[in-house]
């Protein structure tokens, strides 16, 4: 792996301890801008922990200690002067379970904008429409923006969450198993969406579905027991992995 000056995201010897448990061991990886990076690995291997470390969502959990660094555009997000609220505005996140807020569809998408102090109606309208269009949801909800988001289907809800995340125009989009609760058709829509969003954002996606990783990602990292076993071009990982563990996992011999 080469050290590339153009990397959007770079982790260097990054460690996470949950109390006594050493959850991540010396993770070092890079993701270039406008690429999709997939993180795969068996449950509990630390890939979600790593994802949540990027926008410091682990800060709120008690007893979490980190060392090493995660840099975005060369700035360590764990530096003391970094404002975590600003960081999270730059790094959007989509969760495994879709979490539509109990508000209207419009207000859901506008939530982050209002937090940022953006209240001009015309501007909000425009960004909400744009975000919904980019999330491929506009056509389905444009006539009922004022209706509750709780009435949407599971796949629509997840796309709404994506629209909500991209409305604040982040640079990096983190997706934590975004399709694990969805049917194949909704999954296909979201995968298409990821392909489209790639042009604007750097996307890091955690997935249990190896076909999905193979379909959507440019690079793939294999996590196992809190370590990054291997990270390379997706094609390389899936055709000729360098490590035996990776090959075993991909071919279904364990995990």
């Amino acid at each position: 792996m080469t050290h590339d000056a153009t990397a959007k995201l770079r982790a260097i010897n990054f460690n996470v301890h949950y109390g006594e448990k050493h959850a991540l061991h010396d993770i070092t990886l890079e993701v270039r801008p406008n690429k999709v990076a997939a993180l795969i690995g068996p449950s509990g291997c630390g890939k979600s922990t790593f994802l949540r470390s990027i926008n410091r969502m682990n800060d709120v959990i008690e007893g979490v200690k980190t060392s090493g660094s995660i840099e975005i555009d060369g700035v360590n997000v764990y530096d003391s002067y970094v404002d975590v609220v600003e960081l999270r505005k730059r790094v959007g996140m989509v969760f495994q379970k879709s979490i539509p807020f109990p508000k209207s569809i419009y207000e859901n998408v506008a939530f982050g904008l209002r937090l940022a102090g953006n209240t001009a109606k015309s501007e909000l309208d425009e960004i909400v429409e744009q975000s919904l269009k980019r999330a491929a949801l506009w056509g389905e909800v444009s006539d009922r923006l004022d209706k509750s988001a709780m009435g949407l289907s599971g796949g629509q809800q997840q796309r709404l969450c994506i629209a909500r995340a991209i409305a604040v125009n982040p640079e990096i989009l983190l997706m934590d198993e975004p399709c694990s609760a969805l049917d194949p058709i909704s999954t296909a829509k979201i995968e298409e969406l990821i392909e489209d969003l790639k042009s604007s954002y750097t996307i890091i996606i955690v997935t249990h579905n190896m076909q999905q990783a193979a379909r959507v990602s440019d690079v793939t990292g294999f996590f196992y027991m809190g370590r990054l076993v291997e990270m390379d071009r997706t094609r390389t990982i899936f055709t000729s992995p360098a490590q035996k563990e990776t090959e075993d996992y991909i071919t279904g011999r364990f995990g």
Partner: protein
Amino acid sequence: MQLQDKRLFRKKRPRYGEIAIEWSIRVVSSVSILVIVLIFLFVFREAAGIFNSATEAGSTLQTIEAETAGKSEIHTSDNDDLKPEIYNPDSGIETGEAPPANLLPDLQVATTEASGKSEIHTSDDDDLKPEIYNPDSGEEAVESLISDISDKPLQPSKSIWQNLAGENWQPISEEPKFGVTPLIIGTVKTTFTAIAIAAPLGILAAMYVALFAHRRLREIIKPFIEILAGFPSVVIGFFCLMTVASILQDTFGFDYRLNSIVGGLGLAITVVPIIFTITEDALSAVPKSYREAALALGATEWEAAFRLMLPAAMPGVIAAVLLGIGRAFGETMIALMATGNAPLAEWNLAAPARTLAATIGAEMGEVIWGSTHYGVLFFLGALLFLVSFAINLLTEVFVRRRLAKKFQGS
């Protein structure tokens, strides 16, 4: 095979115990419903007396007067004696029929004699018992007479409605005035003060405990606030009367030591736990993932709490506040002890106030059975009943509809 099946099903036997329990549950619940309905009916019937007599007074009275024309000496003396000083010993002596306390039965004698139903006469001895309003004993006539008598000293044209709408509450005076305006103003004043203090305190405390406090801290704070709910209100009233009133007067220099702010503060002490408990439950029921999702969008903890968690719990919060209003509205002991209890038609919060509930509490013990005053007190009770009922209904409807709309989509 077939034999086995039969054996399987032959074990059927009646479950007498369960049937008995089912039925006893049914009976108990229907009895409690019945009791509630009967209480409703009783209160409204007693309160309706004042209106019945007011509307029917004209016609009934005329006929009675006509019929009793021959015995006018009793009637007139009654009329004079039954002015506010209904217990004036003179009147009893003048009628020469009964000791002073028997004045009401006297009246009945007058009416029964007038209508020629002498057989009711025998019930005279029993009349001093509460069952003076036994419908059998010519209730309407008595009522109309009484109301007629107590109304008469006022302007003859003044109806009970006008009296009730008045600005003076002087139920025991030469001209009894039953203006409920000052009582309603007093109730609204104290309730408003109580909610203005209790709602922010209760909601913020609930937010802190549900969303911010450390788990160990929460387990200490929560039961302590909830213990307040079980505090005897007379103790809180006493505390306000003796201590809080003095402190507030020394601090703010109120003209009156006891006023609706002191009373409202006392009520707030009982209302805070209600608002706290229900709000805390509502906030705890909001999925924790909302908070995480909001934080991931760049919200601070407080923004997540105020912009997302609180609105999501809003139906519960509104229910909490409405129930708190209901409690403050109907609370008697604290209102009786700490508000100064003066029926002033004044919106000034620093002035004494008297609430509807406190009025009933204070005057019910010494009111004359069956007098207009008695009917008016029941009318106040009915008013309390209706408002509490309306608040509860509002809570129910609002919460149900809002919850349905919010969480099931539309």
